[in-house]
């Protein structure tokens, strides 16, 4: 087989060689569904021709760049996958070795600190992007038929993203990560049914050796897979139903060609990566001592994305059993996930839909208020430990 050279003829030959043996267009179409193309590729044509046609198509309004949040999520997920794989070369998931192996990644491995910080900040940015994306869907009423699945999948993506962060947070096995995971899990264990199943799956209510190994496996295999599938579903619905509220906005003339979208993607990914690098260098995560199950450091909170759930449960007076507040929390979340279906049952005329929208806003505001309360609860105060 010839080595590809600069000469176009050689490249052409190589492409043709593969084209005869594989449907490259089909493969590319499968990959490009992750937000690269919102339009379909003609898989019967050779790759070059199919791309040329797709690129020349008119640009739909929703593919203009303030709205490419899903694409940012994909970009960040890829960054996480790459940096995660690099970290896995050195990481050892046992309670004895975990802390020392992370320390040697950050301290001794060349540019290990960089990969570690990018991975950590990438996770936070990914969650932030998923939350903003959910807000945008809500604000633009992108949960209404036929986009119910888009909403449900977006909520599920956030939930699974939280799983990813929570399982990854513990792996460093330092005092802050250990205790914030413990505090976070306390919130989750209080949920009825879900909590007990989860406690069983991760090896009990105590965070220990079993939890670490299971979290490692979940973090590197199961949860990313689920996340990738959900991302695929998210873009699959977009391909089918489009994103903008008005279906006829699709393919309006005079807005440029699809190729502009590809440039936008490149610009956005460059910028988000630059933001990541900046955060990793300027605000590096501190590196506290090894986890000690017998000593809680001062000022440990549940992870920021669980603060609201924690604040919500602490709102109730102590005589209310935790499963009651947990059940209320679970119910609120289910209601929120089922928003499109709830709204569909409300009559359109009687200002009912407006009420549902306000209810949604109320849930968001409550979420923010509970998070602030949860943050305030664990403020280190003078004197008290």
């Amino acid at each position, binding site marked *: 087989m010839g080595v590809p050279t600069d000469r176009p003829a050689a490249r052409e030959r190589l492409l043709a060689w593969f084209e005869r043996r594989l449907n490259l267009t089909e493969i590319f179409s499968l990959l490009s569904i992750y937000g690269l193309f919102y339009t379909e590729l003609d898989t019967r044509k050779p790759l070059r021709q199919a791309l040329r046609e797709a690129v020349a198509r008119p640009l739909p309004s929703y593919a203009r760049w303030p709205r490419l949040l899903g694409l940012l999520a994909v970009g960040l997920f890829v960054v996480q996958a790459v940096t995660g794989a690099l970290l896995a070369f050195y990481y050892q998931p046992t309670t004895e070795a975990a802390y020392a192996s992370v*320390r040697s990644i*950050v*301290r*001794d491995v060349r540019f290990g600190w960089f990969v570690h910080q990018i991975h950590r900040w990438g996770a936070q940015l990914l969650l932030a992007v998923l939350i903003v994306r959910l807000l945008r869907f809500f604000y633009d009423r992108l949960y209404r038929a036929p986009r119910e699945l888009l909403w449900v999948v977006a909520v599920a993506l956030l939930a699974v993203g939280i799983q990813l962060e929570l399982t990854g947070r513990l792996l460093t096995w330092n005092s802050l990560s250990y205790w914030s995971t413990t505090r976070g899990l306390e919130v989750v264990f209080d949920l009825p049914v879900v909590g007990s199943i989860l406690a069983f799956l991760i090896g009990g209510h105590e965070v220990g050796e079993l939890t670490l190994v299971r979290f490692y496996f979940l973090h590197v295999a199961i949860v990313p897979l689920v996340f990738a599938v959900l991302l695929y579903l998210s873009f699959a619905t977009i391909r089918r139903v489009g994103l903008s509220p008005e279906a006829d906005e699709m393919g309006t003339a*005079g*807005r*440029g*060609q699809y*190729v*502009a979208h590809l*440039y*936008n993607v*490149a*610009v956005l990914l*460059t*910028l988000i*990566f*630059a933001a990541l*690098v*900046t955060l990793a*260098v*300027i605000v*590096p995560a*501190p*590196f*506290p001592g090894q986890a000690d199950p017998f000593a809680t450091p001062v000022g440990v909170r549940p992870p920021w994305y669980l603060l609201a759930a924690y604040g919500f449960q602490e709102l109730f007076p102590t005589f209310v059993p935790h499963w009651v507040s947990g059940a209320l929390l679970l119910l609120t979340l289910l209601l929120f996930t089922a928003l499109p279906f709830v709204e569909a049952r409300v009559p359109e005329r009687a200002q009912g839909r407006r009420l549902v929208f306000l209810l949604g806003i109320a849930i968001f505001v409550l979420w923010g208020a509970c998070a602030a309360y949860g943050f305030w609860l664990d403020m280190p105060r003078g004197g008290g430990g």
Partner: protein
Amino acid sequence: MKRSRALAALGLAMALPLAGAAAHAAGESRCGVCHPDVRVAFERGVHPREGVACTDCHGGNPRTLEVAEAHRGSFTARRARKEIPKLCASCHADVARMRPYNLATDQYALYQTSRHGQLLAGGDARVAVCTDCHGAHDILPPGDPGSRVARRNVPGTCGRCHGDARLMGAYGKKDDPFADYMKSVHASALLEGGNPRAPECSSCHGVHGVAPPGVGDVDKVCGNCHEPTRRYFMDSPHHDGMKRAGLPECAACHQNHAIARTSAALLGSLCESCHAPGGKEVELGRAMLALYTGAEGEIERASDLVARAEAVPIDVEDYRARLEEARTYLTEALPAAHTLSAGQVEHFTRRSRSIAGEIGSEIDEKLHDLRLRRFGLIVFWFYALLTVAVLIAARRARQGGTPS
């Protein structure tokens, strides 16, 4: 009396090979039938297990239940206090008898040299005899935590008499050494700190030959533990000066019983209790204090930097070891202050300062290298923005002027 004890000893000697009988002597004896409380106390102690019987000290006939018969002959209900040391010594000064227990036999001789022993010989029966410290019946070895003479219990045992103001007043003693000791750093180390080697009364005063150390001996007693401090003190002008002035060396500044935890701050305050304020002696104290706090601050700074470096993380194992070395030199500076020579103190503070300073500047350098990463960011952003600009320009070119 002698005969009966000899008989009892003979009986014991015959009984021993018959049975490995710890319980033999007490078991054979019927004294406990009428004196059950005494028997219970006695059996709690170590003596019955070693075959010592009631009659060995009290005489009488242990085999009968007839009161008159049992209390016949050499029987003595309560031994006179004056006789007790001699009675105990009849066994405990017997080398052959004590050899298997590996026990010393000089206690009686030592006791006779002690203040207690001398007063007793003078006819004063209020002083401590063996039973006052060891108990009469329930005598336990000093290794037993329940013993009155276990290390942690010694202060309380001595304090029963020496903390009794009325009893001590009779000897013209006004201070309360027990209360003073309980306030001391030694008491808190022994009783709260769990340091089994911290001194109790007998560590300084002696055990059976107990006597207060006189002026001129105090530094030797303290020097048994505070060895380097004494060495430095002996080089100082205080050593001869205090002797001439009749001041009890260490105790003159640190008290005799209420010995407080010391700190470097004493260098700034203690001198004025003897020397004129503002005098050159007081100034010397301040100068030594300044040397100490200067080095202490340097170590503090280095240790903060080590903590910061560890949070980065930078490898700090080596720095920790060197910080410990600096602290060791600083610790040595305080005993060295007893020479009253600023040069001696500086000898140690200078070393500890220089080590701490080295650590500080090395870590500073490494942290500075980390700050250089931020300059890398500028270069990175330059290329990132360049990429963005190129991409936007390419898009414009590609779109051929159509507004986007």
